[in-house]
């Protein structure tokens, strides 16, 4: 830099960075480290202050059946939402990318759930799932089936939450596919037409492989969302019945703010941080960074 002397640019650089650095250290780096430390201490009470207890919290966690339950719920939740919403997102993008009549409306209809808060979405869907008087049961009863307590039955509650989440997220992923499709060379399609290959064949052999970087990008984001997004549980199920729909972050919230055990909550947060670190590493090694982070 011409006007900043070599020594000054360090000072200017750090000065410019200072506000961001203070905030990031206070609310990201420091709490991450504090979480690790707190997980080795016991919960403090009126008569007994917090003290170092080594891995006791971790031992308790490994023996906590609810911990394992929420961890597997998170796994099923991710497996239930991600492939379906990706498949729907690709279909939506392919449909909207062609000039169909009403393209603008179609795009808006697919995308709208994305800009709604999860809490509003849950409010709307809660009524669909309500036994007897809810919309789904009314329709089922109308065509001669009996109703079902979708959110009250441990066997159906996670599925019900998954369906709602797919509805909320597919349109968001669609726009990334749409952007990718618009950058695919048109000649490929022309060539395939001349070759006489079917559209199905063209999709699986040409389009889908070319969309792979987008799929990886969406996949990582979807996995992150499946760990970070628990808002709907506050309205729909509170994690119940019997923790059948509980997810890790919601369980952390419950431990910290309902059971007032911040140290156990920290222990659980360490697990969440470890999972996020694994995702970050996968992203680093899997994603072709040149494509998305140019």
């Amino acid at each position: 830099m011409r006007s900043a002397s070599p020594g000054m640019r360090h000072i200017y650089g750090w000065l410019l960075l200072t506000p961001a650095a203070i905030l990031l250290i206070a609310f990201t780096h420091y709490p991450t480290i504090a979480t690790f430390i707190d997980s080795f201490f016991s919960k403090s009470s009126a008569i007994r202050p917090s003290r170092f207890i080594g891995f006791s919290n971790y031992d308790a966690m490994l023996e906590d059946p609810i911990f394992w339950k929420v961890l597997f719920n998170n796994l099923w939740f991710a497996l239930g939402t991600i492939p379906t919403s990706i498949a729907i997102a690709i279909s939506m993008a392919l449909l909207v990318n062609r000039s169909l009549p009403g393209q603008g409306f179609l795009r808006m209809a697919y995308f709208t759930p994305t800009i709604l808060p999860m809490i509003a979405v849950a409010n709307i869907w809660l009524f669909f799932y309500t036994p007897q008087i809810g919309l789904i049961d009314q329709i089922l009863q109308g065509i001669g089936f009996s109703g079902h307590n979708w959110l009250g039955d441990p066997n159906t509650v996670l599925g019900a939450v998954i369906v709602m989440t797919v509805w909320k997220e597919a349109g968001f992923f669609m726009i990334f596919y749409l952007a990718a499709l618009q950058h695919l060379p048109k000649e490929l399609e022309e060539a395939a037409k001349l070759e006489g290959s079917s559209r199905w064949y063209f999709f699986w052999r040409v389009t889908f492989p070319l969309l792979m970087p987008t799929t990886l990008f969406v996949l990582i984001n979807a996995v992150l969302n499946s760990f970070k997004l628990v808002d709907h549980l506050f309205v729909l199920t509170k994690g119940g019945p019997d923790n059948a729909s509980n997810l890790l972050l919601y369980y952390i919230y419950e431990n910290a703010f309902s059971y007032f055990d911040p140290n156990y909550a920290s222990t659980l947060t360490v697990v969440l941080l470890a999972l996020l670190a694994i995702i970050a590493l996968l992203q680093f090694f899997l994603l072709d960074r040149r494509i998305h982070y140019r």
Partner: protein
Amino acid sequence: MTKQLFFQRSWNYSNGLEIVGAWLLALLWISPLLYAFWAAFHPSEYAVNFELFAPITLDNFAEALSQAPFLQYGLNTFVLVTMLLASQMVVCTFAAYAFARYQFAGQNIAFSLVLVQLMITPEILIVENYSTLADLSLVDTITGIGLPYMASAFGIFLLRQAFKSTPKELEEAARLEGCGMFGVLWRVYVPLAKPTYLAYGLVSISHHWNNFLWPLIVSNSVETRPLTVGLGVFGAPESGVDWSIVSAATLLSVAPLMISFLLFQRQFIQSFMHSGIK
């Protein structure tokens, strides 16, 4: 040859089926929202009773507004989102400028440390961040809700990209004209990064308008509660409010963002695209 013709036709003539499919999917996708409109604008006895000529009413909205202070919640959200956006713009611009144009010592490590926040967002660390806020006595304040998000790794990242692609010659020229560090930033870099600011702004507004978990933990009174938290408290099933009123309250809470989305659809969608690809 016939086979080839058949396939060529399959490219051209499957359109009809596709149009039907696309529209069915769109109707299915929009129907939960249409349903919320139906319930909100009709008396509660029509909540599941779809009669074309059911009387239309605004009573549910009036009832929702009388049961909970949604206007105050709306104001809180507006203050929160505005304050956040303004501070994010300043904090992220400075940091991005440092990363893009000053080769300072420790730059790479500092940048990696910033990127950590892309993964570990403040709501992951609710336990520790809450006790930090308590130490700062910022619990139950709008500033407290916004503070952890004011430095945004995402914003720093996007703006750094934009600043890096600004031609250095423009900066040289501005320097010759006598601009200092801030002058160059304000006259050269910021104007050229306008599309990025717009994209980041829209993403940030929609994100914080809709954010729930952290505001729920921090806010504790009518004066600080944003719309999402107010709605969450309002719609709790045990409170036994009826569906038409919940739907009306839900629509009230999403209306401002929804209307802006419908008005500026293209900008919204492009912003989300931009934020993912660049």
